[in-house]
């Protein structure tokens, strides 16, 4: 057999074509056979982040826990069921100092109190802004209040730099030295939550039928009209302070205030 001329044009073109076809088939096979696993991984990563926002960090089996706890809503929010209590999870998107930051924040059934939060970032300064992924910062949100006078008041502030008159219930301490990333987190929270304010209001008003729910008074049939009127004024700051409570006849003490309408209903 004559020796192949490996320098001829025909040989070169045929060689290249055959090689490319073989490689293409090989890669297509690998990519398609692994695609399912890869997609599951990406999804699992997101699920882990969502679970972190309801204080379920480092779950061994993310998929199972997610399926057990979280249901996805049509409007982009998520509902979590933690030990029988419902939480609404709102996605957050914003800008940090150097790049995008994002996260999830979960709200209690009262539509007011933060249950948990999770943040992540792409490239914030190591040791400063990058610390928003750390658990101590995120758990700092737990139990904080969101709305004040129907505005999102919850924010991250440097110690001593919060707007005067804003009670500590709305203030989370910023990461020391990371002013701009912390400002970014604050803007992200305030903008993103405002976008989902309706969803939160609906979540709050939905099942508990509390007439204290913002704008829910007229609709909740179980509420007597006159007690509602009082409660509505009471609801303004969710009865956070005694002053607001005083205007609500039904709320004798600060303790009862949060659930004044519910107790009202049961009394009837």
């Amino acid at each position, binding site marked *: 057999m004559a020796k192949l001329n490996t320098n001829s044009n025909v040989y070169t073109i045929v060689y290249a074509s055959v090689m490319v076809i073989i490689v293409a088939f090989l890669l297509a096979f690998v990519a398609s056979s692994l695609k399912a696993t890869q997609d599951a991984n990406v999804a699992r990563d997101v699920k882990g982040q969502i679970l972190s926002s309801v204080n379920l960090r480092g779950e061994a089996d993310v998929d199972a826990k997610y399926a057990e706890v979280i249901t996805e809503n049509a409007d982009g929010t998520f509902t979590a069921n933690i030990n029988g209590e419902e939480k609404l999870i709102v996605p957050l998107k914003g800008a940090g100092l*150097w790049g995008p930051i994002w996260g999830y924040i979960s709200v209690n059934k009262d539509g007011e109190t933060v249950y948990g939060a999770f943040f992540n970032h792409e490239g914030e300064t190591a040791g400063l802004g990058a610390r928003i992924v750390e658990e101590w910062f995120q758990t700092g949100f737990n139990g904080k209040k969101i709305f004040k006078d129907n505005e999102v008041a919850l924010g991250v502030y440097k110690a001593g730099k919060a707007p005067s008159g804003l009670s500590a219930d709305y203030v989370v301490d910023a990461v020391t*030295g990371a002013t701009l990333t912390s400002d970014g987190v604050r803007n992200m929270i305030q903008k993103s939550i405002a976008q989902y304010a309706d969803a939160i209001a609906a979540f709050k008003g939905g099942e508990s039928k509390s007439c204290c729910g913002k704008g829910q008074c007229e609709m909740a049939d179980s509420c007597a009209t006159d007690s509602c009127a009082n409660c509505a004024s009471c609801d303004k700051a969710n009865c956070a302070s005694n002053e607001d409570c005083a205007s609500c006849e039904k709320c004798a003490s600060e303790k009862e205030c949060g659930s004044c309408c519910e107790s009202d209903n049961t009394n009837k």
Partner: protein
Amino acid sequence: MGLKKILDNMKPTFSEGGKLSAFGSLFDAAETFFYVPNETAKVRGAHIHDAIDSKRSIFFVIIALIPAILFGMYNIGYQHNIAVGVPTDDICGQFLYGLGVMLPKIIVSYAVGLGIECAFAQWKKEEVHEGFFVTGMLIPMIVPVNCPLWIIAIATAFAVIFAKEVFGGTGMNIFNPALVTRAFLFFAYPAMMSGDKVWVNENYMDCINGTIDGYSCATPLGQLGAGEPVTYDAMDTIIGTIPGSIGETSFIAIMIGAVILIWAGIASWKIIVSTFVGGALLAYLLPYAGAENFEWWEQLTVGGFAFGAVFMATDPVTAARTECGKYIYGFLIGAMAIIIRVLNPGFPEGMMLAILLMNVFAPLIDYCFVQSNINKRAKRAAK
């Protein structure tokens, strides 16, 4: 001449082959510290261009630093007293307090830096160079008051090894070692180098929690960077009774140093003046939008601008050496510092980065001027 005799008697022990030859460089350093060495440059080949050797010129720099050091010590005590809520007129007490804070930093910086210099000198069988005397004094002056000593030690070691010794020691470095120390601190331990809590010694929580009315622990630049109104007036920034790195706060003390350096012919007035011109021009063109209580020219009196212009930019090793190049070099440092301050939200202060950046470009500036001179003369010769 008892001392001279003692030194002469000791000399053989430390020379090559002597019992303590491992410490020869140390002995040499001590000897030349007291006496001008008796070996002079050979008649042929050496080009002596100045009457004073590097050891004497370095002590002039130290002398020029003294006003800023003394004021820095006083200011440590002054800021501390305000922060804890007991302002006093006891200047002496405040100074002593500051001395107590500053002295350990100076000792650590010298001990670490000179230790490494000696080790390298011994290893390479060279003399110990004096360059570190200035660097070692600058380092404590450009760190915040609260900077822990071990961090200063690490940063000093890093700068001496990686900014100086690897390039061949004194006179061969590309970057100013003191600024490399600061840059290392800035990037490695950002929480210790910026923010509100590092500028006042101890009890900083008092001012952060707002227990003292009208007092903030932030520097003017920190306040500008965070978009807050500046709570210091122009006079404070000129005298220097503001929080900041230890040596950088007082414009007056730095200017006294500048006069000494220029009078002694050690620092180039061209660099200093052009740095201020560059800074002033950019500060005028790029004013802070909506910054209250802050004039454009205060950019030159706050932060490390003046200190950098006088003591860092003029470092003869890392600056441009051609006379025309010095104008360009200084101008770009000033301009760059203000650009970084105003336009980059991540860095409230820009002097350190501006000087380091221009350190890189100094040889290029020199090259351009030397080449253009060569070309000019070549043309003239060709005629």
